[in-house]
């Protein structure tokens, strides 16, 4: 009976709770009216009236720290912490006929079994508490229905289908024969280095282009992207043939003679990516010059077409935008922005961020969803070490408290998980950034909290390594070490986890929680590429470390060498690429045409 929902275990109920459920239908319905949320967003407590002071029926004391209300007869009994004194709550459970063992902690709204002397957990009770907490934050205005959380349009669920091996039919076989060559044929391709993984090839530096080489190396070994291009999902011959046909029509209308056949080809970064994949995975190990790619990218991003050293992250964003733009124009269909189904770039890298803004006066929460293709993380400030806290205590981050505690082991060490925790922490907006509250109808101080609503197939984390010095107004590069794991669990940063912490870790399907256990979201990631930077802000060098067959290779422009994993762990990371551990197939809506 114990089922796991997004990392949350439903514990087996104790026999008294099970008996209580069997005898009572809808047992916690009456409790819904008695649940009070004292401050907006605070902890729930149990009161018949808002200003009631509960007392023990047996001794009449209201001062003891623990008072329990029986869920069957609503009698309030106390439980003293002094040794030797008999618990009135336990006496009440023992003296009454069976069915009075389950009680509720009056001050904390927690179920308690007086016979087992332990806290017990029930889904229906927790749902009642969450509904009361949600209703309390929308007390004045129109109460929205809390259970069906509003699903964004672009979060349509698709069924998972089982994998079956693909065999080409006659038409596909003809296509393969015309413009494609198989990779796995060892007889046809002369592999100069048989012991090394395929796809390893140096990229020539064309003149300050290490930023392009480092990102290209990472993308060439991104598993979903590699599978896409090596499966001929974007064949540059067909794409260019189609584009040249369009250009010929335009040329016929304008009657302008083309000087060079090459210039008639329209810019298509996906075609150049396909050409790069073909060259790198061809088996030839001599360094490859991505000149065509640089030429096309400079035509796409004209503002970045300079000989100066560029930012690798900026190139990454610009290149994915170029692939998306080309496919978008080629398809000529309107698509929802950030849908994640428009092009291969967004299929692989697109996730959805959720932003909650909560009014600190009335607790009203406004939620927005934004697509993102990577997450830019600030390094933690210098005076803060990496905070290590239990998940339960992050509940208090809703109050805006800044808990700062340094562990002795990792004092002063920044970690990727610390940066992600800081990214998803509730941030109190200052009094100069008051936001209009729809419920209060005035500008109020607010809490803002980010979380990840949908994880991409490949997560790219970009570390912001520049800061403006307060004394001298010049940008400076942050050379601090950041620890990053080789395996990363993203479930603490999901919207469901953040919301659950905000509501006190109740058992409730929050936004993003999948009810079906077999469709559980995979939130575990593995590191496969790290782009590192050394040097200054205006002059430096990018190097990529690739993980292939559980070995690490250093790609330094044309030089590809194997390195120990300790060198990767100690490197100064700038961009980190994580891929989901378990990839699966989705049922497609449209019919797949060749």
């Amino acid at each position, binding site marked *: 009976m114990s089922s796991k929902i997004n990392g*949350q275990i439903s514990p087996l109920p104790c026999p008294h709770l099970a008996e209580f459920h069997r005898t009572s239908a809808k047992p916690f319905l009456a409790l819904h009216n008695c649940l009070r949320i004292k401050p907006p967003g605070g902890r729930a407590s149990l009161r018949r009236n808002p200003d009631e002071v509960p007392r023990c029926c047996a001794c009449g004391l209201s001062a003891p*720290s623990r008072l329990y209300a029986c869920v069957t007869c609503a009698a309030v009994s106390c439980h003293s912490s002094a040794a030797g004194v008999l618990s009135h709550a336990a006496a009440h459970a023992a003296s009454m006929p069976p069915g009075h063992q389950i009680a509720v902690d009056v001050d*904390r709204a927690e179920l308690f079994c007086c016979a087992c002397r332990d806290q017990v957990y029930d889904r229906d009770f927790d749902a009642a508490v969450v509904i009361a907490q949600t209703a309390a934050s929308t007390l004045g205005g129109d109460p929205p229905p809390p259970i069906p959380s509003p699903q964004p349009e672009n979060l349509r669920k698709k069924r998972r289908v089982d994998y079956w091996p693909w065999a080409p039919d006659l038409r596909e076989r003809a296509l393969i024969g015309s413009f494609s060559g198989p990779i796995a044929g060892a007889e046809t391709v002369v592999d100069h280095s048989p012991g090394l993984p395929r796809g390893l090839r140096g990229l020539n530096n*064309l003149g300050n282009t290490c930023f392009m080489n480092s990102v290209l190396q990472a993308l060439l070994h991104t598993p979903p992207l590699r599978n896409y291009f090596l499966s001929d999902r974007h064949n540059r011959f067909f794409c260019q043939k189609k584009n040249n046909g369009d250009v010929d029509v335009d040329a016929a209308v304008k009657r302008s003679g083309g000087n060079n056949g090459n210039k008639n080809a329209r810019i298509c970064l996906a075609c150049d990516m396909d050409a790069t994949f073909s060259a790198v995975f061809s088996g030839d190990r001599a360094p490859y010059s991505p000149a065509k790619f640089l030429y096309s990218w400079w035509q796409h991003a*004209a503002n970045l077409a300079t000989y100066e050293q560029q930012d690798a992250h900026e190139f990454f964003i610009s290149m994915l935008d170029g692939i998306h733009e080309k496919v978008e124009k080629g398809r000529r269909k309107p698509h929802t922005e950030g849908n994640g189904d428009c092009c291969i770039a967004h299929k692989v890298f697109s996730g959805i961020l959720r932003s909650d803004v909560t009014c600190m006066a009335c607790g009203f929460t406004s939620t927005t969803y934004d697509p993102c293709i990577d997450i830019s993380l600030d390094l933690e400030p210098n005076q803060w070490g990496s905070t*290590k806290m*239990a*998940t339960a205590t992050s509940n208090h981050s809703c109050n805006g408290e800044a808990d700062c505690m340094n562990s002795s082991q990792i004092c002063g060490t920044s970690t990727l998980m610390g940066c992600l925790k800081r990214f998803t922490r509730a941030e109190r907006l200052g009094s100069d950034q008051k936001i209009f509250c729809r419920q209060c109808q005035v500008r109020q101080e607010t809490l803002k909290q980010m979380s990840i609503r949908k994880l991409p197939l490949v997560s790219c984390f970009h570390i912001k390594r520049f800061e403006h010095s307060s004394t001298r107004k010049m940008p400076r590069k942050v050379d601090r070490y950041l620890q990053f794991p080789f395996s990363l669990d993203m479930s603490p940063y999901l919207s469901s986890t953040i919301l659950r912490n905000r509501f006190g*870790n109740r058992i409730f399907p929050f936004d993003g929680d999948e009810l079906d256990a077999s469709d559980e979201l995979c939130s575990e990631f593995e590191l496969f590429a790290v782009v590192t930077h050394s040097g200054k802000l205006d002059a430096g060098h990018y190097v990529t470390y690739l993980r292939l067959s559980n070995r690490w290779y250093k790609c*330094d422009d044309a030089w590809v060498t194997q390195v120990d994993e300790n060198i990767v762990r100690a490197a100064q990371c700038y961009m980190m690429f994580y891929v989901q551990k378990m990839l699966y197939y989705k049922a497609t809506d449209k019919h797949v045409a060749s």
Partner: protein
Amino acid sequence: MLVTVVYLLSYLYFFVLWNNSDVNVPKLSYFFLDLLDSIIVDVASECHRVARLGLDSNLEEEDEELKLSAQARVRVADPSNSNEANGKYVVDIFGQTHPPVANEIFDCLNCGRSIMAGRFAPHLEKCMGKGRKARLKVTRSSTATQNRYSRGGPSPGSTHSPYSNYSTNSMNRLAYGTSTFAGEEHSNGTLES
């Protein structure tokens, strides 16, 4: 949370001591113990829920990763461990060596001129008329185009032979690793001729 609890306990303890009088001691002590018990039960209740529902994050795995990173940094910082040779001037995993500036020759995609790989980006910047000195390069590019048109008239054999010789000499000199300034001069010379 523990910091908050410790801070609150210290504050309460100080409060009790400060109001030390014979009449108030029992009441304040009772109030203090009651509040302390309430705070402890709050933390215990939250931790109990986290533990029973399996919501505690995998701290052991995290500590293991941190330990591995700390060991890696110590090992890399140790100069006696020759973990990583210098990036350049080494033999890669394919048994190849590479010059500091890539010397592969290919045709420029914009103007069709032969160019060395390591010099392609600065050449393309001028060729496309982008980035620095865009206006000047556009003028020179126009001049080069006019020269190319004028050279079409005479006999191709007599005209192209000295040009190709000059280009070959320029390439040979660039291949020997001259400075960037010298390379620029030769590029200008090529464009002028």
